[in-house]
């Protein structure tokens, strides 16, 4: 049985242990970014909460994984340390859901999606698969042996 490494809220892990599976539960408005280099079998999973570190730079310094604009670059850099190459990287994303809010005060899910697309566009990163938005909770598992991403969405599991 593979070893399960849990990534909490505002957390990130990178590993090259093929026996491990990275998992993050409880993606509501937060977004899970899974990256995997199939050649060196290095994978990483980030669970960020909020779009922009300017909200609280001190917090961002202490925990860069809280925000998209500090967490995403950190995730990639960490994977490079393990020998991953950006050109081979398979990127899959999930989360960014919304509660039913007509006034948009709680539209953090949408903001989390927008910044993700902006960062990836600027850095020429292509997203291979995504499960974003809606009003559902999601769980993401990244198998480091195969690179498969298993998505659980509203109680149903499928490969992303």
């Amino acid at each position, binding site marked *: 049985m593979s070893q399960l490494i849990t990534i909490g809220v505002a957390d990130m892990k990178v590993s090259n242990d093929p026996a491990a599976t990275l998992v993050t539960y409880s993606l509501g408005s937060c977004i899970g970014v899974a990256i995997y280099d199939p050649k060196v079998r290095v994978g990483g999973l980030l669970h960020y909460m909020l779009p922009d570190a300017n*909200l*609280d730079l001190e917090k961002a310094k202490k925990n860069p994984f809280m925000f998209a604009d500090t967490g995403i670059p950190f995730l990639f850099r960490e994977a490079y340390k393990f020998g991953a190459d950006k050109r081979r990287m398979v990127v899959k994303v999930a989360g960014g859901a919304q*509660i*039913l809010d007509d006034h948009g005060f*709680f539209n*953090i899910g949408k903001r989390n999606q927008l910044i993700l697309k902006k960062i990836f566009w600027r850095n020429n990163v292509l997203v291979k698969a995504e499960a974003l938005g809606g009003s559902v909770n999601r769980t993401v598992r990244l198998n480091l042996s195969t690179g498969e991403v298993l998505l659980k969405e*509203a109680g149903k599991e499928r490969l992303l």
Partner: protein
Amino acid sequence: MNLAEQIISSIEKLPPFPEVVKRLMELVDDPTADAEDIFAVVQYDQALTANCLKLCNCSYFGLRQKVHSLRQAVVLLGTKNLLKIVLAGAGVNIYTKAQEGYGLQRGELWQHSVTCAILSQIVLKKMGRSEDPLLFTSSLLHDVGKVALSDYVGKEFDIISLLVQEQKMSFVEAEKEVLGIDHAELGGIISEKWQFPPLLVKAIRYHHPKDDTEDGREDEDLVPWVRLSNLIANMLGVGTGHDGMACRVDSDLLNQFSLGRKEVQEIMAEFPGEMKKAEELLKITVH
């Protein structure tokens, strides 16, 4: 007997809420109560004492030295914190099973409840208010109705889910439509049966927007506080089930707090640090 009546009669099967907690609830309401009064109530319940000692030593409550006895804890923590601890230590017993109808495994509803309780105290702090054990408790217990409604939700899940997806109903609105009663209303009935203080009953009954919510006295009404904490807890998704994100925001909720988008994000940003301090709350055992 229609379905809603059957559901209400099914709460007779729920275990009674411990007498010791009822006594504690009265103490929360009593401004003259002091730590000795709490000690007097708790000391004879060994399992509860054990849970309380574990919680006293979690960094969330800010003690620098390790506590070995409840009497020592009483002195060091003060009444408000001690009440939070004993009510959490007792509250965990409500959530002993999985709520499969909601897609919740055992322990997940407790995780959501603790998340909500911690957020409620972050919101209080943001608003410049002092800690409030009754709000903490209301946030911990707001979803008690799910314990009794879960099986019924499970049986009708497909149709509830369809109403949520196709007709854009909130999950709680769909529960009401299909079952004739929702988990908030049922939680209100359960908490009345358990003789919780009226403010707590009201906070549980109206923790989702409802047309018939009576306005409370602004200074003591817990309803908007529990609603806001619950919404943010749902957004964070910790321990939330199928219904999690399908919850509606009442239009003037944030106006009541004079909060905007930025402040909502600031509240969320406080959460991971506070939750880390409170990890023991997730580990306490059911007795």
